[in-house]
């Protein structure tokens, strides 16, 4: 393994060991809470679209909204300052504090303040800064960085926090329980808030019409921070501005549910500073609040720091819609296992973190963790503002690829049939051009499989391509699906439909049997089947960030299928990740009409069988289950498309007893699990699925899975045979 890969693998291994359990328990809890909580909404999808539309509009009109906000803030008696960058913001905040002769600033949680590192700046000016959010305070005491954008100390267990406090504060009685730790922090921080000169908060949203800021919290520290001292500094990115108070409503309903799975957090503070509440001056403890002269000062510091450039960037703009709820972190299988210390950059972590880091810090910071997004797409339906997070990750990957200059460029350029410049790593190039490798593999099979399996070959593959030697390689079949299909004659008289079975690379070259089963099943249901010669979908290069190559595939695939579609034929796809290309990513590559045609004509194979049966096809033509117990793992992208249920329904209708896994992803994710730097993480993620299929209840069930990757992963983790669901239901012939 190369040194860089080895170092990355070691860091991931260490974080899995030290922080993985704590991060995993909490994020899985949040994620499960989200699924339950959003069910309480009458129209969850509608609310998300509403939230999305508000953000799209706000970012579109941002300069105008900021002008309006400046007027309202000033007429309310506050000050609005737009900071170009971190240094500018810090200087302004420091000057406000120095004007007040502030000795102590108390802060409520704010990621934006982490981004500009204002604490360090103020401390350098001898101003004491105290984080009052309990999680942030733990990190301040421990001198660590946040591992999650909402629950910053998620990586620390109760025991670790107790050890930290007992060591740092030496309390009379050692602290142990969460209750004791919380009450200790409440007391201590309460005193620090009482003596504070300036309160600093973030802002989740700011309304241009009234200058009202919304703070989403549960502890009450933000309330105290904003109300006790007479000076309030709020720090937020410029993207937080929305038009009106009423526009807050969808966000208030979505943010807690999406993030920590709470219907709503304890407090949504809607403050229009300077607020009318009396200041609480603990230096005059016996002066009634009614007799306290309240003269509040408010400074809203809006930070650009790259955001206006993101607004002009057609690919990164969506990032600005992010409301920092953390849904994309919690739903992410990789994040659940390593947390934000691996899956994060300078400030931001999780799926959307790449977009933020690329925008505010630069590509280098984003490149550190961008590869941990496998494109499984589970975050896209979790995101309350419908951001296509995997696409942002892909775009950033593409830019990172293009920014990198490899010493071996002269060697690989021209040898690979892709559209990419020299910067793409050999590893990414290999996986991105898998179609070529598969063609060669099948042509030379079984010699190619035998040669690839040799120790010396695996050693070379690991050294030059970063393919982990512990991972079994796919076995190329000498007779491809297309060869097999061409050597036989169709047996359907008077067909009800004609279907094009899309020969994806894996079905065509490796898992040929599932392709044959699909042909048999469709023909048994009265469908005339065609298996044409069409290029691979472009999923492989896309997942390596090779966008130009993926687009090239899209054009060829559409050209290869267009006449079939025009002739009224249905496109049936076995591999869910390829179907997801047709139904989702091709929108970025094809003219609108072309995208509509291919996405509407395409079906996942079990979805198609479901439709045939639903329209009267004879289920007796398929293999009945007769009560056979089946353990089913759907595919991440298939679930995102809402197609998990079709397989379950078909199997149930045929008399199978189905138990379905509920993990978000198998962890294999195409090439991800092959890469030596990620192999162990991939196996760790897969162990959850393994566990679910090894319980007493599921341990003897027949295993079926929809995706190639899922089958490969399961095959390495279970000792039972496994297959695609279509193989289970296809007539045996």
């Amino acid at each position, binding site marked *: 393994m190369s040194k860089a890969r080895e170092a990355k693998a070691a860091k991931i291994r260490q974080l899995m060991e030290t922080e993985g359990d704590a991060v995993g328990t909490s994020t899985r809890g949040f994620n499960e809470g989200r699924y339950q909580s959003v069910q309480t909404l009458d129209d969850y999808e509608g609310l998300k679209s509403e939230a999305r539309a508000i953000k799209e509009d706000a970012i579109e009109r941002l300069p105008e909204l900021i002008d309006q906000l400046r007027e309202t803030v000033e007429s309310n008696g506050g000050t609005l300052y737009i900071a170009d960058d971190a240094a500018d913001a810090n200087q302004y905040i420091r000057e406000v504090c120095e004007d007040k002769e502030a000795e102590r600033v108390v802060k409520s949680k704010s990621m934006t303040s982490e981004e500009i590192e204002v604490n360090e700046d103020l401390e350098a000016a001898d101003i004491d800064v105290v984080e009052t959010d309990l999680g942030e305070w733990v990190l301040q005491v421990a001198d660590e960085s946040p591992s999650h954008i909402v629950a910053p100390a998620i990586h620390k267990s109760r025991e670790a926090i107790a050890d930290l406090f007992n060591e740092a504060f030496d309390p009379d009685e050692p602290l142990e329980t969460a209750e004791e730790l919380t009450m200790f922090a409440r007391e201590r921080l309460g005193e620090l808030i009482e003596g504070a000169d300036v309160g600093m908060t973030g802002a989740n949203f700011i309304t241009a019409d009234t200058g009202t800021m919304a703070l989403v919290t549960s*502890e009450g520290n933000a309330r105290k921070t904003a*109300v006790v001292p007479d000076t309030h500094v709020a720090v937020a990115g410029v993207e937080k501005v929305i038009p009106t108070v009423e526009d807050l409503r969808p966000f208030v309903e979505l943010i807690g549910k999406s993030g920590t799975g709470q219907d709503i957090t304890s407090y949504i503070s809607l403050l229009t500073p300077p607020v009318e509440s009396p200041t609480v001056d603990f230096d005059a403890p016996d002066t009634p609040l009614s007799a306290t002269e309240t003269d509040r000062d408010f400074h809203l510091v809006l930070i650009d720091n790259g955001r206006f450039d993101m607004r002009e960037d057609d690919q990164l703009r969506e990032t600005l819609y992010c409301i920092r709820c953390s849904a994309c972190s919690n739903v992410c299988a990789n994040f659940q296992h390593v947390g934000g210390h691996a899956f994060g950059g300078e400030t931001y972590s999780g799926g959307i973190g790449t977009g933020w880091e690329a925008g505010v810090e630069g590509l280098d910071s984003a490149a550190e963790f961008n590869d941990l997004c496998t494109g499984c797409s589970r975050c896209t339906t979790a995101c309350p503002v419908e951001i296509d997070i995997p696409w942002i990750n892909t775009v950033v990957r593409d830019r990172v690829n293009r920014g990198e200059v490899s010493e071996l460029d002269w060697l690989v350029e021209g040898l690979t049939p892709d559209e990419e410049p020299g910067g793409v790593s050999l590893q990414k190039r290999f996986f991105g051009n898998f179609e070529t490798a598969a063609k060669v593999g099948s042509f030379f099979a079984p010699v190619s499989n035998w040669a690839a399996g040799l120790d010396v070959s695996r050693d070379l593959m690991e050294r030059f391509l970063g393919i982990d030697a512990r991972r079994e390689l796919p076995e190329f079949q000498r007779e491809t699906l297309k060869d097999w299909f061409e050597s036989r004659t169709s047996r359907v008289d008077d067909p009800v439909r004609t279907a094009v079975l899309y020969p994806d690379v894996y079905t065509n070259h490796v898992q040929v049997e599932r392709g044959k089963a699909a042909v048999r099943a469709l023909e048994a249901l009265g469908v005339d089947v065609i298996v044409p010669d069409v290029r691979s979908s472009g999923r492989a290069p896309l997942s390596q960030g090779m966008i130009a190559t993926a687009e090239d595939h899209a054009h060829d695939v559409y050209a290869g299928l267009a006449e079939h579609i025009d002739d009224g034929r249905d496109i049936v796809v076995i591999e869910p990740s390829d179907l997801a290309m047709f139904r989702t990513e091709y929108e970025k590559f094809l003219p609108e009409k072309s995208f509509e045609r291919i996405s509407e004509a395409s079906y996942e194979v079990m979805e198609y069988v479901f439709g045939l049966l639903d329209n009267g096809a004879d289920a007796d033509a398929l293999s009945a289950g007769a009560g056979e117990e089946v353990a089913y793992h759907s595919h991440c992208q298939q679930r995102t498309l809402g197609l998990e249920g079709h397989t379950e329904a078909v199997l149930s209708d045929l008399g199978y007893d189905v138990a379905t896994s509920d993990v978000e992803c198998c962890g294999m994710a195409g090439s991800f699990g092959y890469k030596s730097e990620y192999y162990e993480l991939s196996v760790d993620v897969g162990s959850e699925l393994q566990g679910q299929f090894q319980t007493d209840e599921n341990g003897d069930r027949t295993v079926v899975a929809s995706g190639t990757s899922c089958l490969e992963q399961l095959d390495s983790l279970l000792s039972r045979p496994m297959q695609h669901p279509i193989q289970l239901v296809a007539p045996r012939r």
Partner: protein
Amino acid sequence: MSTGTVATFEDSLERLEVGWTHASPDGLADVLEGLCSDPTIGVSLPYDGVDLPDWVNIDPTPADLREANAGVTAAGLGIADYGSVVVQGTPDGVEPVSLFGDLHVAVLRRSDIVPGMPEAFDWLGEEFRTGHPSAIIATGPSATADMGALVKGAHGPKEVHVVILDE
């Protein structure tokens, strides 16, 4: 028995493990006496003919805030779907009084309970544009999970009780 929006509000409070009591204007003092222990601070209620009992300190100092066991304030609105009460940030100190005591008692007129967030934001938008510009949508007690398990009572009240004023 309550019906409609009020019943939904009560169900939500039940789910949050927040206590509630119905009271008539005349019966409020007795209800508060049963809920609060000394020292109790409060802010005069903005409802005609409804006064807080004498033993509630309605002119608290910072020291009183620090020592308070209970804080009694009005709530401008109840939101049935969520069991939330809207605590407005007024010059007479509703915000600090509702925040510092271990128990917050929110006194809410039955007629001020609305079904959900759409109605609440219609009301808030109007309030904010006509001069009552700050409010907290408070749902249950303050809480944190940052110390390894859910704990009620972080920086704010450990307990909330809603008194529904039946007029």
